[in-house]
C-alpha cells in the first residue's frame, strides 16, 4: 500500500464524503431534541440521550449501529434472539455498541420491564387506594388510545402500527416502547419520541381540552379529604393487583408484574436496599441504555417517512382524546356521585405522573384558589399507568 493509496482510502472512508441528506436531516432532528431537552427541559432524561445518540448514529460509517432495526429474517430464527444476532453478524458484520444495546436490551424487553420495575418502586399508589373508584377514571382516559388507533387505521396504517400509535395516548414511555417493539419495531423511534415529547407538553395540550368540556362551576367543585391509607393496604395493593390483572389479562402480566414487584419492594419496608437500587442505581443505568438504544433507532430510512409526521400528529389526537375521555367520564361520575367529584380529575387519567395531576390542580386553583384536588387527581393519575398497561396487554393478546 503506497502513501497515495492510504490517503485515497482514508478519504473514501471519511464520513463527510458519505453523508446523505437523510443523515443531515436526522442529525438536525437529533439536535432539535437535544435543544428541547436542555432549553425547555422537555423530558431531558430521555430526550437528551435519544437526541444525541441520534446524532451519533447518523454520522456515516461511525459503526455505532451496523444492523437494521426490522431485518428480514428467515422465519425459523425470528423469535430466537441469539440466532438473530448470529445471522445479523454474518449479514452485516459485527455489532456496534448501539446494536448490542438495541438487540440485547431493548428488543428483549429487558429495559422497558426494568424501568417499570423502578417506576413501581417510585410510585405511591396511596391516593388510588384511598378512593378506589377514581381508578375508573384511569380506565376512561384509555379511550384516547383507541380513538387514536382507529384514526391511524383510517389513515392507512396497519393494525399493529395503529395499536402502537394509539398507545402513545397512554402517556407511558416504557409501555409504548414495550408494545411497539413487539408489534411494529420499524416505527419505534417515532412512537417513542412522540410519547416522550407530548408527555412534556401535557401542560399545553390538556388545559384547552379540559376547559372546553367543563364549566367553571364544575371546575370549582371541591372534594372531600382523602382517608389515610395504612401500611398494610399499601403492601396488599401490589400483590392484589398483580394477581388480579395477571389472571385476567396475562399478556399485561410482565409490565404490571414488574411494576408491582417494584412497588412491593417500596411498601414492604424491609428491603430498602433493593428499593433504593430499583429507584436509583439500576434505574439510572437502565435509563441511560434506554435513551441510547431508542436514539440509535432514529435512522433516516425508518424515521424520515410521511408516517413519522402522521404519527406525531396522531400523538396529539391521542393525548387530546385521552384527556377528553377522562373528563367526560369524570362528568358521569360527578352526576352519579351527586356533584361530589370534580370532573377535571378524569384528565389526570392520562398518566404522565404527576404532570397531568398538576395541570388539573392548576386549573382548579385558577377558578378557586382554595380548591385542593391534587391528591384526588393522583388517583386517576397512577391508575392510568395500570390502565395503559392493561390496554397494551389486550393489544398483545389480539395482535401479538
Amino acid at each position, binding site marked *: 500500500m503506497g502513501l497515495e493509496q492510504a490517503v485515497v482510502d482514508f478519504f473514501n472512508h471519511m464520513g463527510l464524503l458519505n453523508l446523505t441528506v437523510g443523515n443531515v436531516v436526522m442529525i438536525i432532528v437529533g439536535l432539535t431534541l437535544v435543544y428541547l431537552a436542555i432549553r425547555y427541559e422537555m423530558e431531558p432524561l430521555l430526550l437528551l440521550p435519544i437526541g444525541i445518540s441520534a446524532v451519533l448514529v447518523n454520522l456515516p460509517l461511525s459503526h455505532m449501529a451496523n444492523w437494521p432495526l426490522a431485518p428480514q429474517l428467515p422465519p425459523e430464527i425470528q423469535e430466537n434472539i441469539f440466532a438473530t444476532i448470529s445471522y445479523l453478524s454474518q449479514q452485516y458484520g459485527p455489532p456496534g455498541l448501539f446494536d448490542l444495546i438495541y438487540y440485547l436490551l431493548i428488543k428483549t424487553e429487558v429495559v422497558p420491564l426494568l424501568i417499570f420495575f423502578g417506576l413501581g418502586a417510585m410510585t405511591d399508589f396511596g391516593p388510588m387506594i384511598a378512593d378506589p373508584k377514581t381508578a375508573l377514571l384511569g380506565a376512561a382516559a384509555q379511550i384516547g388510545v383507541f380513538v387514536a388507533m382507529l384514526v391511524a387505521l383510517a389513515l392507512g396504517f396497519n393494525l399493529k402500527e395503529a395499536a402502537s400509535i394509539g398507545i402513545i395516548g397512554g402517556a407511558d414511555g416504557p409501555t409504548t416502547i414495550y408494545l411497539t417493539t413487539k408489534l411494529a419495531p420499524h416505527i419505534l423511534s417515532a412512537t417513542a419520541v412522540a410519547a416522550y415529547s407530548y408527555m412534556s407538553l401535557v401542560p399545553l395540550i390538556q388545559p384547552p381540552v379540559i376547559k372546553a368540556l367543563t364549566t367553571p362551576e364544575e371546575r370549582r367543585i371541591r372534594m372531600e379529604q382523602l382517608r389515610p391509607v*395504612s401500611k398494610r393496604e399499601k403492601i396488599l395493593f401490589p400483590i392484589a393487583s398483580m394477581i388480579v390483572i395477571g389472571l385476567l389479562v396475562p399478556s399485561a402480566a410482565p409490565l404490571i408484574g414488574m411494576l408491582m414487584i417494584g412497588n412491593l419492594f417500596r411498601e414492604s419496608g424491609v428491603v430498602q436496599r433493593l428499593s433504593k437500587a430499583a429507584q436509583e442505581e439500576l434505574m439510572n443505568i437502565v435509563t441511560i441504555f434506554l435513551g441510547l438504544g431508542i436514539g440509535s433507532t432514529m435512522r433516516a430510512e425508518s424515521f424520515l417517512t410521511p408516517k413519522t409526521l402522521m404519527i406525531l400528529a396522531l400523538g396529539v389526537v391521542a393525548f387530546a382524546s385521552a384527556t377528553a375521555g377522562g373528563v367526560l367520564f369524570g362528568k358521569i361520575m360527578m352526576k352519579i356521585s351527586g356533584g361530589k367529584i370534580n370532573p377535571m380529575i378524569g384528565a389526570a387519567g392520562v398518566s404522565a405522573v404527576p404532570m397531568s395531576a398538576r395541570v388539573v390542580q392548576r386549573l382548579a386553583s385558577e377558578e378557586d384558589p382554595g380548591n385542593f384536588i391534587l391528591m384526588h387527581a393522583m388517583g386517576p393519575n397512577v391508575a392510568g399507568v395500570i390502565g395503559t398497561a392493561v390496554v397494551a396487554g*389486550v393489544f398483545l393478546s389480539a395482535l401479538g
Partner: protein
Amino acid sequence: METFHCEVPKMSQLLEGLYITILGIVVVFSVLAILAIVMDLIGRTERKLVEKEKKKEVEDKKVEPVKVEKKLDEKKIAIITAAILAYLRGKQPKEVPIKRKPSPNWWLSGLITQMEEVENFNYEIGKW
C-alpha cells in the same frame, strides 16, 4: 421494512380495530373496576381490623406494657454489667507486662465498639 401505502384502508382492518376497541374498553374498565372493588374490600377489612386491634391494644395496655421495657432494660443492664465485668477482668493480667498490650481503658472502649459494630452488622453476610 414495509413501505407505506397511503391508499384507502381495508374495511376488514377497520372492523377488526373496532372489535379490539370494544374488547379493550370493556377489559380495561372491568379490570380497573375489579381492582377497585378488591381494594375497597381490603380497605373495609383493614378498618375493621384496625378498630379491633385498637380495642385489643387498650385492653392489653392494662396487662403487659411493662414487660417490653423491662426486657430492654435488662439488655441494657446486661451490656453495662458485662462491660464493667470485662473491664475488671481486663485489669487482672497486669502482672504479665507485655509491651504492646493496650491499656485496659482502651480495650474496654474497643470492646464495646466492636460489640456494637457486630450488633449493627445486621446480617451483613447472612442476608445473602
